[in-house]
Structure formats: C-alpha cells, structure tokens
C-alpha cells in the first residue's frame, strides 16, 4: 500500500464508520454492526501502518498535494504507530464490552459514532505533522469527549462534563495562543520545518521560544492531568458509564502525554536546562499527589481515576530525565498503562453490573461468586503496581535505571515509594471488593441474578483479550522494549523525520 493511503486510513475509517452509523440512526443493531466493522478495520490499518513504519522508520504524506511547509502534513514514526495500535486495541475491547455493558438508550443515541469520532481525533493527534492541526485535532477530541461524558444526561454526568469542558477549553485557549506565538516567532507551523528552525543557534527569535513552550506545557499539562492542573480529572472521569469512561480514562490523558513528549523532543529543546528540572518536580508531585488522593478514596472508579494521575507522573518522569533509556521507558509505560488502565476500568464495570455499586463499603465477597474475574483483576492490578514479572515492572525498571544513571536519585526514590503506595491501594481494592465477606447491611436483592453465560462471556471477552496483551508485554517484554527504544531513538534523532517530511514535498 502507498504511504499516502496508509496514513489517511486511520483517519478515514473511523470517519466512514461514524457516518455509516449516522445513516442507520437509532437502529441500534445496525449501528453496532457498522461500528464493529470499523473498529476491526481500524485495528488492521494501524497494524499495517506499524509494519510500514518499522520498515521505513518515518512515513509522510502531504494532504491536498501542497508541498510541505504550506500544506497539511501527516507523518508517522514508531511512537505514533505504537500509540495508534494501542488505541485501536482498546477501542475494539471497549466496543466489545459496550455490546453488553452499556444501556440501550445510550447505544441508540450516538454512542458508537461518538466513540469512532473520538478515535479519529486520537489518530489525528498522533499522525499530524503540523502544530495548528494538532490543536484542531485536540478540539475534535475534546468535543467528542464532552459529548460522550454527558451522553445520557444524568445529573452527575452533566456536572462532571461541565467541569471537564470548562477547564479543557481554557487549556485549548492557551494552546491556541502558544500556536500563534510560535507562528509569529518562526513563521511556520510545520513541525519538521520548525524543528529545523529552532536548531539554528543564530535565529533571532530563539530566546523567545521558551515563552511559547510554557503555553504548551500548561495547555497540554491540563489535558494530561499533570500536577497542579489535574483537579478536573477525578471530578469528571468517574461519572459516565464504564463503556465510556474506560476508553477516555485509558487513552485521552496519554494522548496529552504523547504530545508533550513529541513537542519537548522536537521543538522546545532550546531551554532544556530550565524545563527539565521543572518537569522533574512536576513529575514527582504528580505521582505523589495522585496516589495519596487515591488512598483517600472509597469508590472503585474514583481510586482508579486518581491512579491515572499518579501514572502520568511516571510518564513525565521519563521525559524529565531525557535520556534515550528514560524516554523509551516513558513510551513503554504509556503503552502498558493504556492497556492496564482500560482493563481495570472494564473489570470495575463488570463488578458494578452485578452489584449495582462502585462503593467499596457496599461491595464484598466477589471472589466467592466470580473467582475468574477476581484473578483477572489481580493480574491487572499487580501489573499496574509494577510487580515483577508483569508489564508495569519493566516500565518502572527502565525509568528507575535511567534515573539512577542520570543521578536523579530523589525522583527515583519518590517513584519507588509511590509504587509501594500503589500496591497498597490495589490491595485495598482487592481486600474490600473481592476478599472480605459481603457486608450484611446490604440487602440480598440488590445483587443481580447471574446473567446468562453468553452475555457474561461477551463481558469477559474484552477483559481477557486485554489481559492477554498485558501478560504478553509483561512476560515477553523484549519486543515492546525494543520498539520503545526505537521510538525514543526516532524522537531524539530527528533527521529522518525532518528529511522524510520535507523531502517528499514535490507535487505529484
């Protein structure tokens, strides 16, 4: 397949899927069929993209056939392809879960097209080679997230969605200002051309670049939920149904993180002496505050929401250390976290579907009734906490090693302590939800009767699928570690990227 096609497919497939869903408006089963097809083809297309990127390192296309600095560039390297494959896998799993795990009203009222458009936004962010388009794709993301978070319109959901959208609009305003400032400083928005411009030491506007970078740091910091800008996340992520919050919680903050890593390796490299200590500080506080917040919660979904913040800290830690190993560790951690976090949310959804509650106080004794589910949870939770030999361990090992090599002992110490508290927090869920006897105060009839085996199987299928991925990247970590190292290498040596984007700018 030509790379023109390969780069456009991850954008077009969700779009076509969404509009096929629109064409079958309110016929829920047809919509489900169309969305399922789109999910599968999307996964295939990202796998093809990955394959091509592995062979060619970077591929690029110029949408509209206008040459590079002026036209709209789409480009993919190993990092973006990795993100897309991960997004496609969890997209498929969340879709499979939603078949049984989401109420009919929401499914009929636009859940599938919105999810697909959200995925299109994710593809756009990961593939774009243009700063302004990056902002536009983030808006696509934000609007779809807002619609999904408020879908169904229960009171708690609207409250959460308003918090989410208010602060994210502010962040988008900052991003747009940053884009404008960058354009006025360098006269270009193409990432590859900007990357070359900021590497000219004699460029007159270079000292002003750090000002622009602050706008991006704060803007994407809000979107990635970095300390101290994370308050919107636990306030909004636990409100919608699991089939919605699992996708958003699993992926969207990591997309913010992806952009931070991309921009701070490609563009804002002139003032790293100032930025990196700041990032290290933020990373330490993000993981600490997130995990302490989680320890204070007594709600299954809220604990998981706070853990998202804590895990973002680890990804930021890799960027703050800024060695090839550290950035590879960050990338490994992002991929691992996308899978694990989604899986934990899905498991909480299965528990809640049977017991009608997320409150740790009211839950209990799940192990007796659903031992398989308990084992699935245990493996995912240990993986999140980073118990060897599961996937979280390798990510943390890479980060810790990189930190020790760079002499950043405080940060490594904090991260290891946070690991312990994460383990404690997961043990708390395990004790309260799965292990302790059912509280007597809760009436018997609040438990749903065991659902029929086919429905149960459909709920378990995505969880087992994701766990298979998690176990694979944990027990056989070498391929993903190698991939992460290649991705980090591509990020730190930008020649291939700039050459590919700027060289195929002849009009065909």
């Amino acid at each position, binding site marked *: 397949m030509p790379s*023109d096609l390969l780069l456009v497919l991850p954008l077009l497939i969700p779009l076509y899927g969404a*509009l096929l869903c*629109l064409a079958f*408006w309110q016929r829920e089963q047809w919509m489900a069929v169309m969305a399922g097809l789109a999910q599968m083809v999307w996964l295939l297309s990202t796998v093809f993209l990955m394959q091509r990127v592995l062979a060619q390192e970077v591929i690029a296309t110029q*949408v*509209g*056939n206008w040459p590079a600095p002026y036209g709209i560039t789409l480009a993919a390297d190993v990092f973006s392809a990795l993100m897309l494959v991960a997004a496609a896998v969890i997209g498929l799993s969340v879709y499979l879960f939603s078949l049984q795990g989401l109420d009919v009203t929401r499914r009929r009222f636009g859940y599938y097209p919105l999810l697909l458009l959200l995925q299109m936004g994710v593809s756009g962010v990961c593939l774009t080679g243009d700063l302004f388009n990056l902002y536009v794709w983030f808006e696509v993301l934000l609007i779809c997230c807002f619609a999904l978070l408020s879908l169904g319109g229960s009171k708690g959901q609207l409250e959460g969605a308003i918090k989410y959208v208010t602060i994210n609009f502010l962040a988008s305003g900052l991003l747009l200002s940053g884009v404008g400032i960058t354009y006025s400083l360098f006269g270009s928005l193409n990432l590859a051309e900007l990357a070359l411009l900021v590497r000219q030491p004699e460029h007159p506007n270079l000292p002003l670049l750090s000002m622009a970078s602050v706008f991006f740091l704060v803007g994407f910091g809000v979107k990635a939920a970095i300390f101290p800008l994370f308050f919107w996340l636990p306030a909004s992520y636990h409100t919608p149904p699991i089939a919605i919050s699992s996708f958003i919680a699993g992926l969207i903050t990591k997309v913010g993180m992806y952009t931070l890593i991309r921009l701070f390796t490609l563009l804002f490299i002139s003032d790293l002496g100032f930025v990196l200590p700041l990032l290290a500080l933020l990373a330490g506080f993000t993981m600490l505050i997130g995990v302490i917040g989680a320890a204070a919660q007594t709600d299954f979904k809220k604990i998981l929401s706070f853990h998202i913040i804590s895990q973002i800290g680890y990804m930021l830690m890799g960027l703050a250390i800024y060695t090839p190993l550290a950035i590879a560790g960050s990338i490994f951690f992002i991929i691992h976290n996308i899978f694990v976090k989604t899986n934990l949310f899905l498991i909480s959804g299965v528990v809640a579907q049977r017991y009608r509650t997320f409150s740790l106080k009211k839950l209990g004794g799940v192990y007796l009734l659903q031992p398989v589910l308990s084992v699935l949870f245990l493996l995912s939770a240990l993986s999140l906490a980073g118990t060897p030999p599961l996937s979280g361990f390798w990510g943390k090992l890479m980060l810790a090693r990189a930190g020790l090599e760079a002499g950043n002992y405080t940060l490594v110490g904090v991260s290891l302590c946070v690991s312990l508290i994460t383990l404690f927090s997961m043990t708390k869920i395990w004790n309260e939800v799965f292990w302790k006897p059912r509280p007597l105060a809760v009436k018997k009839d609040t438990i749903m009767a065991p659902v029929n085996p086919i429905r149960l199987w459909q709920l378990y299928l995505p969880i087992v699928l994701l766990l298979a991925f998690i176990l694979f990247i944990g027990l056989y970590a070498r391929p993903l570690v190698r991939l992460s190292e290649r991705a980090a290498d591509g990020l730190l040596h930008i020649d291939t990227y700039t050459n590919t984007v700027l060289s195929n700018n002849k009009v065909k």
Partner: protein
Amino acid sequence: MRTIIFATAIRYLTPLFLLFSVYILFRGHNHPGGGFIGGLIGSIAFVFHALAHGSDRTVNTYFRMRVYSQGKQPEHDTPQYMWDLVRANTWRRSEEVTPSNWRYYIIRVRPAYMMALGLFMAATSGVLGLLQGKPYMSAIWLEGKLPIIGTLGTPTLFDAGVYLLVLGMVLKMVFTMSKE
C-alpha cells in the same frame, strides 16, 4: 411570531434563500463563500419557515414526502397506470382527490441522514485523489466550464458535502430545540 405578514413573506423568501445559498456555495471557490456559509444561509430558509409555521409544519412541508401508489390492476394498461401514478404524486396530492384505496409511503429526510451524506461526500471527494495515486484530497478538475457554476471538481464536491453537513446540523439543532 405567527403573523400573517411574516408567514406570507416566508413563502416567497424561502426559495430565495435557498437559491442564494446555492449561489454562495458555488461562488466559494474563487470568492468569499463556500459550503459552510452556504449551508448556514440555506438553513435560514428553514429556520424562518419553522418560526412562521412551527417546526412540525416545516418537517411536513420539506422533509417528509408522501408517495402514493397502488398495485397495478389487471384492467389498467401500463401508460394509464403510469399517468395515474404521476398525477397522484404531483398536483393531486391532497387526500380528497387521491382515491382512498391508494396506499402511501412516507419518505423522511432526517437531518442525521443529511449530515451523513454530507460527511460522506466531503470525505469521499478526497479519496478520489487517492485513487489516482496522489495524496489524499488532491484536487481533480473536470475539463470545460459550466456557465454559472464554473468548473466542476472534487473541491466542489467537498464544498457541497460541507453544505449538506452544516444544513443538517443546524436543522437538527433547530428541530430538537423547537420541540422542547
């Protein structure tokens, strides 16, 4: 706003708005205009109609069509049958004139369908470039020039798609809000 002056004026203004919106749509390639603005102007026609007559009547007038038909009877010859079909579906639309044993089907144009079609046209206009081995959204122009519309090409198709999308989107909002 249900005054008789407004309601009468709307009858003459609606086609004018629509015509103007299509003009703006095709003007958009080289001058200010295009699908987005055209779609907004086109939607004004229906919004005013809904203001004057209520949105249910707008839907009934423009977005819901009854198609009358009757199974072909053995005593009818084919031309006669076709003629009756045409007559029932064009000027003799009211139920008093159409024989009561005729069935009718309701064709509804939902705003969601318009949005889907618009998105499809806009997205597919880009795919045509791909088929020629060029990047996505490369423009392909037809030979020759039409009198008012100008040259036709994939960008025109894209604009028409945007037009339908915007029109469908605004109508969806207006109809939903006027229901509440």
